[in-house]
């Protein structure tokens, strides 16, 4: 995740919701949270009730993956998939702070998640869909083998069950600790989406703050409709890297959702309290349209499903 760290430090705008320096900041943060935009101290329960939007200035604070699912999905509708998949250390990777394996354990303990992606099936206002949500608190939601594998299984199941797919992304990029295996998840997830698209099923992408690198440059932007949250930072290279390399001052609002829509890269910016409504409309449209028994390029849907089932790595929860 080449770009991740800078989001914790740049201009003091981003608060590390879970620092990865080993210190445990959880106790004070449980009660009071400082709004990274207006600086107000917010009572964390109130913030929870307001879907983590600052009641003072409207800033959209980051959400954990399960918070996001709770916010978007109908109560009790979420059935998780592949919760048993765990990352390990295929490269024997050791960096300046120690082995990757140890870092994984610490992160799992602190975040309470086994990996940076939570996936499953849920309903939104009664509409069934497949959902895959990145968790920035797990190593900056960097995409490694398990992130990719869980996402691909979710995509395959969306194909099998003929359900729309919703991805909710935030990421610092590919996970460096798994080397090229991480980079290849870009190819793997996009390839799965290519098949989903040929089967005529929609992929709706929600981009949240911050979304960078290999995630933005792969599955997250290969979508039929791309929605971003207000103010979210989204890009390929991180702002600090660009500043360092180009020696140029970045323009005001660079890489915000508002910048992206102006440059034609996303379909909508949607405030969090209107997200469910927009997703329902999109699901309805793409589901209504999805009447053609054969995808545009002549592939019989039955054959496709068979392939997806064959390639799929097992039963779903």
């Amino acid at each position, binding site marked *: 995740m080449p770009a991740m760290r800078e989001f914790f430090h740049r201009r003091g705008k981003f608060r590390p919701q879970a620092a990865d320096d080993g210190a445990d900041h959880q106790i004070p943060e449980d009660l009071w949270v400082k709004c990274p935009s207006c600086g107000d101290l917010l009572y964390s329960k109130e913030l929870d009730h307001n879907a983590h939007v600052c009641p003072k200035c409207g800033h959209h604070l980051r959400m954990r993956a399960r918070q996001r699912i709770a916010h978007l999905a109908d109560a009790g509708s979420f059935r998780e998939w592949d919760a*048993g998949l765990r990352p390990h250390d295929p490269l024997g990777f050791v960096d300046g702070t120690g082995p990757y394996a140890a870092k994984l354990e610490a992160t799992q303990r602190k975040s309470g998640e086994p990996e940076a992606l939570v996936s499953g099936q849920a309903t939104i206002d009664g509409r069934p869909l497949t959902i895959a949500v990145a968790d920035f608190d797990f190593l900056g939601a960097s995409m490694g083998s398990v992130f990719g594998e869980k996402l691909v299984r979710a995509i395959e199941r969306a194909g099998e069950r003929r359900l729309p797919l919703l991805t909710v992304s935030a990421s610092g990029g590919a996970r460096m600790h798994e080397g*090229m295996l991480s980079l290849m998840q870009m*190819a793997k997830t996009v390839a799965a989406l290519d098949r989903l698209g*040929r089967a005529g099923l929609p992929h709706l992408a929600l981009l949240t703050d911050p979304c960078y690198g290999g995630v933005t440059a792969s599955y*997250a932007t290969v979508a039929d409709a791309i929605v971003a949250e207000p103010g979210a930072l989204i890009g*390929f290279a991180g702002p600090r890297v660009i500043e360092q390399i180009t020696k140029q001052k970045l323009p005001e609002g660079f890489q915000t959702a508002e910048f992206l829509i102006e*440059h034609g890269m996303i379909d909508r910016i949607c405030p969090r309290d209107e997200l469910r409504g927009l997703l329902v409309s999109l699901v309805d449209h793409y589901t209504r349209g999805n009447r053609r028994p054969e995808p545009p390029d002549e592939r019989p849907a039955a054959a496709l499903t068979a392939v997806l089932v064959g390639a799929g790595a097992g039963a779903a929860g």
Partner: protein
Amino acid sequence: MTETAASPTAWERVKLARHPERPHALDYLAELTTDFVELHGDRAFGDDRALVGGLACLDGRTVMVLGHQKGENTKENIARNFGMARPEGYRKAERLLRQAEKFGFPVVTLIDTPGAEPGIGSEERGQATAIAESLLRMAGLAVPSVAVVIGEGGSGGALAIGVADRVLMLENAVYAVASPEACAAILWKDAARAPEAAETMRITAAELHRFGVIDEVVPEPAPAHEQPKAAIRATGDALRRHLGALLAAYPPDDPAAVERLRDARYAKFRRIGSWRDAGEVRLGLPSQNGSGSATG
């Protein structure tokens, strides 16, 4: 840096892969193909000289070639942005891939880039989106494809033209999720630790073959900058062999072959990765080459 009888270290290979006299994409085309007609432009904004493409004749067959192109000298390097493509480059690639599909041309890509350009203009014009759309087009390509990492395989900007049916890699090429310098700067807080980072990142052809990321290592009898023709010819041999096998297995005149080809390509990339499944404590390492398996 000298080449030793012993196998070069990962960091030595980084330096070999970046050697300014190492042959670049157009050198390969000049040596291996005839009648190369370069095609320019993305039809929307510009022509990116860091990523070249066009039609070439390989053994009597027209192929669509795409490649990152570094300069042969400083002036050309500036014109070619040191082989760092902008969104226009990836959109040109995507356009030419569509054309390859239309006419049934097999695709050959030559990977050699420090990475996609990080810059204000590149962000404004959607560098991430352009790479993602190139990935998507390669993943679903209706024609066979072979990618060769000939020098520096730098991150997403390299992979954008690397989702091929066969991925080959020269012995002294490297292919990495990030540059060792960037990795060291972030994870060691010290770019000077790049040699260490290079080692632990597993970026050499031999290691990536073991991990199932690439399909074959193309030998360099001597480092390619010392004996460019030998490296290019070895690449040509491997290219012809793989392209021949793909065309035999998926003949362009057999419509059913398109689906089998897409399925096989999907299966190839589908299995890359490594994880533990809690229920059985097993690993899902790539099995393609029968190697690289380990228990956690």
